[in-house]
């Protein structure tokens, strides 16, 4: 039997701990696209697609959780694949704005979709995801990211980020890499969305808009994109911060904003500027 205080402690911080894991996954989703130099801000939208796809399956159709998880990855990945081709011609702020537009279009879609609850969202989502699911996935994802970084693919990705045209001349198939990054990002964000839906029991159409998109971006930028650990650290810090700053009340968001500003100006490579090596095996 668990001691009473430990039980209370876990109960108190359970959703915070879950949010840490979910947000770390979202930060990785952001990292994938930033790692190929693409400022695609569709992660919130993909998260929403994953959350809705999985929640509709478990709530309305009573599907088993693993099936819902697969759908939460497949649906946004498919969406990313379809919109990827025309979108990836865009660069910089155009891509950023186009992907923000995607989030808004989906929001309007959910609002007008009665089967998905419209503005009321979906209630009573079973609490299927837990500590093991969320952090197990996070660890698997991190290991995969480290493995991919330390390989031919990791070198090509960093080359694209450093100098896209030069990477092309090295023989890197730019559209294929960018599309793959976007699809992977969508799948991870969708999975995070499914986890989030299945620990907080309620999702609504307004949870995946512009605000959420920039929050996810700030995870990655705060942490730095030299290695996959940077965004994860950024997510942990920014998720814990509102709880830590709770006593400041009105000035909490002020501090939040101030931290972002100071990091960008004074620590342009993030709070974890360490760059991961790109070679997988030597002797």
């Amino acid at each position: 039997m668990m001691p009473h205080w430990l039980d209370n402690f876990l109960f108190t911080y359970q959703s915070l701990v879950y949010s840490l894991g979910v947000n770390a996954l979202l930060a990785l989703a952001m990292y994938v696209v930033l790692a190929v130099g693409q400022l695609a801000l569709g992660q919130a939208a993909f998260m929403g697609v994953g959350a809705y796809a999985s929640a509709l399956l478990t709530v309305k159709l009573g599907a088993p959780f693993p099936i819902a998880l697969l759908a939460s990855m497949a649906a946004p990945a498919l969406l990313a694949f379809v919109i990827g081709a025309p979108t990836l011609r865009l660069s910089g702020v155009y891509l950023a704005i186009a992907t923000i537009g995607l989030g808004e279009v989906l929001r309007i879609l959910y609002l007008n979709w009665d089967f998905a609850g419209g503005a009321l969202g979906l209630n009573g989502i079973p609490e299927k995801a837990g500590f093991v699911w969320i952090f197990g996935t996070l660890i698997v994802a991190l290991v995969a990211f480290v493995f991919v970084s330390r390989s031919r693919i990791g070198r090509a990705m960093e080359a694209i980020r450093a100098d896209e045209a030069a990477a092309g001349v090295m023989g890197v198939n730019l559209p294929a890499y960018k599309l793959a990054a976007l699809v992977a990002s969508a799948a991870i964000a969708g999975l995070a969305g499914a986890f989030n839906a299945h620990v907080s029991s309620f999702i609504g159409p307004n949870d995946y808009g512009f605000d959420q998109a920039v929050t996810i971006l700030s995870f990655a930028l705060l942490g730095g994109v030299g290695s996959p650990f940077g965004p994860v650290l950024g997510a942990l810090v920014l998720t814990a911060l509102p709880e830590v700053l709770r006593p400041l009340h009105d000035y909490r968001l002020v501090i939040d904003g101030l931290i972002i500003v100071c990091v960008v100006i004074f620590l342009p490579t993030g709070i974890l500027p360490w760059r991961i090596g790109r070679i997988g095996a030597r002797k």
Partner: protein
Amino acid sequence: MLVRRQFNLLAAAGLGALAFAGPSAVTLARAADPVTIGAVEILTGPNNKYGIAIKNGFDLALDEVNKAGGVLGRPLAIAYEDSAGNKDQAINAVRKLIGAQNVPLILGPTLSNEMFAAGPVANERKVPIVGTSTTANGITAMGPYVFRTSLPEADVVPVTLKTAQQKFGIKKVAVMYANDDAFSKSGYDVMKAALEKLGIETLTTETFGTKDSDFSAQMTKVKSVNPDAIVVSALVEPAAGVLLAKKALGIPASVHVIGGNGLNSPKIGEIAGDAADGTIVGSPWFIGKQDPTNQKFVAAYKAKYGSDPDQFSAQAYDTLFIVAEAIKAAGAPDSEKIKDALIKVKHTGVLGPFSFTPNRDPADTSGVAVLEMKAGKFGLLQ
């Protein structure tokens, strides 16, 4: 005892690991240690006006409860947590209040959305959670520990529409609602059902966004169908915008706007000015109610905060008395006992007579008043 107090302070500072003062420890506490209940409201961010009105109502009632001797011979205290209008933060706040501060009961959260997220958490932990401003359908269906003292829209809106129908002979209306938030949408669902039941024809249904400021296109459409009245479900800001657009497009004052709970706020007159005149709402409470309890409340509120209370403050004010009575009846600050006592409470407050239905919703709709705005103030519809 000094040691105990320090522990309480540490626990209040959010160091959950040290908060091992379980219910058994509480009974050992000295008489002067307060009974602390929790409250989760929107205290920061864009929607904090609702949370602050509610907090004001709680605090005012708290003063009076404590002046009258508190509960169980101890003072009553409220530990506030901010949700910032964010459902994840609402969940965290509820968890923290229960897990780290061991509160036996939670007031709030402010929005129906937040309640849908946080209600199941309290219910799972068997801690009663009492919404004072959550009017959407299905709130109390979440579980036996979820209560609300606010009349759901489903109780208020039919009364409003029926009164207006009889009074003005309304036959056909235009409906406008914000389709992007749960509060307004569920209000609309109620209106739609009530209109059908009363045999009132809906000429057109127009939607807008809660953050919109331009309603001219929708209002032009409404004007073109010549309704007898316009039925609106929205929060106060967009509702004020709708009223201003109605005036700007020259729709006569004889075409009344009939609103849901969101329009029931003095803010609507402050923002929309004379464009708000003629707005009809149903309310569990209104500022001009003549009974002495209410007049005392309004005067005390003005004295303390320097502004008029709204229904959110009034509901919060009554709710705190209801909860205090339940704690007294329970005989101990124990969640299970309070839950059992709460359902039996009968209280007459500024909203009129109050009791819970077996489903933990307010039972009595006799307090519903239909109000009309005149010169920036709501008064009983004459």
